[in-house]
């Protein structure tokens, strides 16, 4: 499936308004100052499309930071999983690539009911990035700036119109009732899209080669003294994991309201905390910070490719923004790749 349509920009808000009648519409809106945040769209004309990366990633709509799982009482268990119909508009290509991987993780051998319930009720309209941020490096990973598959609907901004590509059944459903708004694409439209892709690709400031970094690690060229310096800079804030569109860890906690009833919650967790692997008997298997920071990179660079054939990173650049110690994926991977002679991690 990958059908193209053309939508004049002036018709976008009408289309969204009609779709909003069926499900709640979430899109990139102005936050404080120059911030962009995804939230419920009150006024469609306030959507900001050509924007810097939002924090956190749209995984929050499928896997929220705090989620009620179920309520239990003497009368039984009430499932509280989210199943609200949602249309998430204006998501970036890298995030769509990440969600495709999340689907494989949560919907694979062990199906996560809570994630899948939200996932099946959510439709994404993504947009190719004409102006990548300075922190972006999806280009080296094939996860952006434009996608050829994996999306529900992908828009390409062609100046006065959008090229609308339909990539899934869900995508088709939200178009077919409004087909009168769209026109058939001409060759010129595809030419313009190609031009937009080329121009976008030329604008990337960062070229990070994760494969080289992986090879260097696998061939034993990165020793622990490197990771020691990386770990030293880690603030243990968990930000990289919280923001990462591909990190999936959570912790399960109970909130007993009374001896007979309560709620079970799950909250985002991170492997960077030593309590994450704490065991009974006061055993802390990963007490040293170096073990934990190293594991995060290894998971993304080594274990993910082994499991899914893809890196656990889509180059969205969020950890570059949110890491106070400046030991984000882009910085560290390029340091490994460059083979920094001094073998120093982090920083400048």
């Amino acid at each position: 499936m990958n059908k193209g349509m053309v939508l004049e920009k002036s018709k976008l808000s009408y289309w969204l308004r009609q779709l909003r009648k069926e499900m709640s519409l979430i899109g990139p809106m102005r936050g404080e100052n120059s911030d962009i945040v995804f939230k419920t769209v009150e006024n469609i004309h306030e959507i900001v499309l050509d924007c810097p990366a939002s924090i956190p990633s749209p995984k929050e709509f499928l896997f929220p930071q705090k989620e009620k799982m179920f309520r239990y009482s003497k009368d039984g268990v009430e499932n509280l999983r989210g199943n609200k119909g949602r249309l998430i508009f204006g998501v970036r290509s890298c995030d769509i690539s990440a969600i495709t991987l999340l689907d494989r993780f949560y919907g694979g051998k062990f199906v996560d009911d809570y994630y899948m319930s939200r996932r099946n009720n959510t439709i994404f309209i993504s947009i190719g990035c004409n102006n990548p941020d300075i922190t972006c490096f999806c280009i080296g990973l094939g996860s952006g700036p434009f996608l050829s598959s994996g999306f529900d609907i992908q828009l390409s901004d062609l100046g006065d119109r959008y090229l609308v590509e339909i990539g899934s059944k869900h995508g088709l459903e939200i178009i077919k009732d409004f087909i009168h708004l769209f026109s058939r694409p001409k060759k010129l439209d595809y030419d313009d899209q190609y031009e937009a892709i080329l121009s976008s690709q030329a604008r990337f400031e960062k070229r990070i080669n994760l494969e080289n970094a992986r090879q260097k690690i696998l061939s034993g060229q990165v020793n622990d003294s490197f990771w020691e310096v990386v770990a030293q800079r880690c603030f243990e804030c968990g930000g990289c994991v919280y923001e990462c569109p591909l990190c999936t860890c959570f912790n399960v906690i109970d909130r007993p309201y009374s001896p007979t009833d309560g709620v079970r919650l799950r909250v985002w967790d991170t492997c960077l905390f030593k309590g994450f692997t704490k065991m009974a008997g006061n055993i802390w298997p990963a007490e040293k910070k170096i073990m934990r920071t190293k594991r995060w990179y290894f998971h993304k660079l080594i274990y993910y490719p082994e499991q899914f054939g893809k890196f656990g990173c889509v180059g969205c650049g969020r950890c570059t923004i949110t890491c106070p110690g400046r030991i984000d994926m882009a910085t560290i991977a390029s340091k490994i790749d460059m083979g920094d002679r001094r073998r120093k991690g982090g920083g400048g």
Partner: protein
Amino acid sequence: MNKIPTICPYCGCGCGLYLHVEDGNLTGVSPIRSHPVNKGTLCVKGWNSFEFIQHHERLKYPLIKVNGEFKRASWGEAIALIASKLTGIKRSYRPDSIAIMSSAKCTNEENYLMMKFARAVIGTNNIDHCARLCHSSTVGGLAETFGSGAMTNSISEIVSAKVLFVIGSNTTEQHPMIGMHMLDAVNRGAILIVADPRKTQISDFAHIHLRHRCGTDVVLLDSIMNVIINEGFVDIPFIRRRTENFDAFEKVILRYPPDVAEKITGVSSQDIKKAARIYAIEKRAMLFYSMGITQHITGVDNVHACANLCMLTAHIGQPMTGLNPLRGQNNVQGACDMGALPDVYSGYQKVSESDIKKKFEHLWRRRLPSRPGLTLTEMFDSILDGKIKAMYIMGENPLMSDPDVSHVKEALKKLEFLVVQDIFMSETAEFAHVVLPAATFAEKDGTFTNTERRVQKIRQAIEPVGESMPDWKIICALSKKMGYNMEYRATHEIMEEVALITPSYRGILHHRLDSNFGLQWPCHDLNHQGTPFLHRKKFTKGLGTFIPVDYIPPAEETDKRFPFLLTTGRIYFRYHTATMCQRTSTLEREYPECYAEINPKDADSLGIKGNSMMRVSSRRGSIIVRAQVTDKVPEGTIFIPFHFREASANLLTNPAVDPSAKIPEYKVCAVKIELVESKRDQKD
């Protein structure tokens, strides 16, 4: 799903964050990317700051103690009871028999109202808050030297500085986002000097780490100044033009050459000289300090020494310089600014000056007391002396935070009437006669002032849980019941009154705080854009005053019976008395129990191994903690965080206070350590 921009409720950095709200539930937090302090980052506490808000243990309705047990009450009953009790005590004794603790966790508006309530409604100046325990030495000390007790420069300047001198601050753990700016500066080539007896994360990045003995800060700083004077790095034109009392100061400094200091502090004279030269030569040099300087009986002296150092080298009144005390609580700066202190009204206007008192009397239409009230540390002594009969505590937990807590407990038990207004049933609240449920930062509007004097708006994200109410509404209701009408429709009306009567806040009104993340006071009129750095061209008080300081040893030194020094502090995953973070699953999990850092050599000599339990005792009490054997602490010194109810470090600490600031000496006391033989029944 909505995202409400607001300010983090933990430390004094004042990071901006969004609270994510869906159908009245908080589902998460994310950082504000364009915020000048955190720039899209948060620390672990910030990232998890939403979880405690809708915790099931929140206080949801007022409680009145009947026969030793709390019974649910209506707001009407609770307010009526408090009003009649307080009025009764005020009549049968006198207004000064009531003491009030305001809160550095509450908004500026609430602190202003609380101080108005104490002074106009009760008629006492007995109002104080936890700034007494953290930066009262700064507020007083810098007022004497510069005329203004606040961080002189701004956080966003740090990254462009060339030298950072950090003394007594574990910055990356306690002010993480300021630590981030510091590391960025180091990345860009700045030299970092850290003075701290402990090894901390920030000291790992230091070019020079001065590990002086606890309590010898004055000697260290004096000897640094000695080097600066002797080697001719003094900025003479600056001293002539802008300061006074240099000669008296110089005489004292000459008594502290580096080799004398080496003997007292344990820092090599070479390192002292190096640090002095680096700090003095570079123009863009910022000095930072925190609890390691203030929490001593010589807290004010330490602050004076820091101020002297800045003036001596003219590192003040310019961008990327200055003396920068890092404030610990989200709104401790604001609570001080609003006059929740026994001797000043808002904007540090002295209660003892009759013109100022008259001004407030006109505005509030009440006669006001002119004698400064009791400080927080004096309040508990006064209860035991029978002078204080009733206490009103808003959002504080002295039973965990104050030194020698067994003494505090005794005092609380003796009170005729105690009201605690809090978000959770704290250790202190259990002793109260009436407990009032307050709203958290996510459930109300108002402003917080961060450590760099930035007044920022917080915004209501959800409705208050249960029947809880914002503190300002509670104070208004109580005040009305006591016959003094406080009527405000919203918090911006309170701020308007603050601006009217407070010169440094005159231009700070809510509608001006919406763009650009607030304003930094002083802000003198409605067109003023705020002040990023203080003392430009002229000190607030005119000339800067050198105040000579001599070394006074800590109140309690080690001896044969108590051979170890105990120093206390905070840890990254916990916050103060832990009322909020112990209800946050991730934070609680990381450090579930108290521990003590002990040097490997000391551990060896006592037969202590990692994870063995040891009994730590001082002259005041004793606790059992798990040993963490580490060279983070120097020999002869142990470190215990004070957050834990089960092993409260403040059972041990010395209540000796600085003579003028009345800040207790949390950082030094003498203890002994014994190994507790391991038994099966010990807590794992």
